[in-house]
């Protein structure tokens, strides 16, 4: 019996219910990962720096993220008198929302089958499978910039302003490189749907049956695009070595200098949510999504966590680039490389 696909028109209640469950699960999981990403980061960097990281709150410090959240929640919320209060309040939300929304198009597993009323239904483990999924993600990443600009401007502080400007320039220029680097992917996959891209990666490498144990992950045929994507997204989410907008030693705290309490926590969460999103996208586009030896979403999470570890590891090791060098890297190295990659991929597709 082939499973039926749930649709809104035929089984509206069931459809809505399943959708809600998916949204809640994905949202809560992301929130939890965000909370524990901060913990993991502090713990891992601590260990790398011969420290211990949090270890007092709860067993092994496991309750630290919750304690931090509570603390920030109950702190006094200060709006500087010279700030524009509406924009000032709006900014953190505008950063957080796009960071979470991107999760909605990412497939974290294969189909889930269940029978209801004697009919077998298949539910994709993905909130929604947009046929322009990749574009949607790129668009959401673009929206995130507004929050930062707004935060920088609304604070009416020079350090925040500088941070905001830096950040805008940085995100705009790296978005180009990142966007172009993934163009090569959908030239190969011939679809913009993330689900389709993952499905294309489950085939054996280059369609060769002799090496069928190696999957056709795009990291193998697009290593350059992968490199560009990882570097570019580190820049886009303001991680070291590209964390100039909040370069603590230069700009105090960059665009969030004037923020406190829960609003500050929102920025903080957005940063980590972005990290998760980017890891998830990289997993989907280059590492074959949920494909792998274990059950669907477990593979997916393993890959995402590996990426996040990598980002944390980089942060513990590298110094920070300078503003002009960052721009140079973005426009004069990464952008041409991404273009060259597209051309080569195009030629290769034509010849085979």
């Amino acid at each position, binding site marked *: 019996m082939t499973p039926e696909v749930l649709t809104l028109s035929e089984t509206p209640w069931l459809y809505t219910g399943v959708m809600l469950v998916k949204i809640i699960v994905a949202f809560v999981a992301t929130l939890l990962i965000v909370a524990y990403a901060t913990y993991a980061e502090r713990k891992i960097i601590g260990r790398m720096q011969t420290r211990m990281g949090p270890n007092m709150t709860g067993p092994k410090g496991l309750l630290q993220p919750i304690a931090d959240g509570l603390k920030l929640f109950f702190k006094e919320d200060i709006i500087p008198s010279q700030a524009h209060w509406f924009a000032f309040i709006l900014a953190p939300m505008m950063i957080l929302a796009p960071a979470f929304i991107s999760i909605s198009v990412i497939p974290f597993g294969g189909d889930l089958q269940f029978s209801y009323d004697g009919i077998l239904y298949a539910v994709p483990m993905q909130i929604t499978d947009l046929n322009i999924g990749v574009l949607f993600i790129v668009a959401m990443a673009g929206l995130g910039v507004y929050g930062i600009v707004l935060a920088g401007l609304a604070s009416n502080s020079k350090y925040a302003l500088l941070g905001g400007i830096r950040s805008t320039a940085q995100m705009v220029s790296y978005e180009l490189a990142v966007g172009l680097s993934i163009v090569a992917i959908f030239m190969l996959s011939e679809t913009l749907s993330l689900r389709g891209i993952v499905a294309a990666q489950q085939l054996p490498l280059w369609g060769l049956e002799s090496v069928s144990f190696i999957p056709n992950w795009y990291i193998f045929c697009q290593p350059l695009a992968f490199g560009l994507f990882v570097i570019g997204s580190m820049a886009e989410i303001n991680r070291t070595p590209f964390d100039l907008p909040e370069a603590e030693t230069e700009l105090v705290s960059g665009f969030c200098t004037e923020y406190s309490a829960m609003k500050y926590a929102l920025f903080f969460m957005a940063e980590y949510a972005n990290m998760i999103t980017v890891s998830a996208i990289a997993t989907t586009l280059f590492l074959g999504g949920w494909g792998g030896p274990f059950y669907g979403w477990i593979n997916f999470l393993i890959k995402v966590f590996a990426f996040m570890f990598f980002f944390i*590891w980089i942060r513990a090791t590298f110094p920070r680039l300078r503003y002009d060098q960052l721009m140079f890297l973005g426009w004069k190295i990464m952008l041409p490389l991404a273009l060259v990659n597209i051309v080569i991929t195009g030629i290769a597709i034509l010849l085979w």
Partner: protein
Amino acid sequence: MFKEFAKGLSITLKHLLPGNCTTVQYPKQKLEMPPRFRGLHRLIPTPDREKCVACYLCPTVCPAKCITVVAAENEAGEKYPAVFEIDILRCIFCGYCVEACPMEAIEMTDAYELANFSRDDFHFDKQRLLKP
């Protein structure tokens, strides 16, 4: 270039392994202070009084001028400090008072947790200084 990046990454990764931690769990675990440590002062007592003979050397030598001594004579005709006070807020813990004392009547202990809630708590009078 990539070799150097990898080298840096390998150094941090190496430290991730257990056994590289240098943290001392401070309030739970305290370090042993070396014998010469210059912490809070203590007046050394004899069985019936303090060793100090109120010779005024320590208030004189103190660069921060934070010791107050008032000499008096007891029934046996011996000099003793009627008042001996150290204002720890002004003290710079130089150790000169210990060095100057001809009677070895003052010493510096290994107490370093001197935080307190009010300024008055930092005036150490004779009774408090005599406590072990």
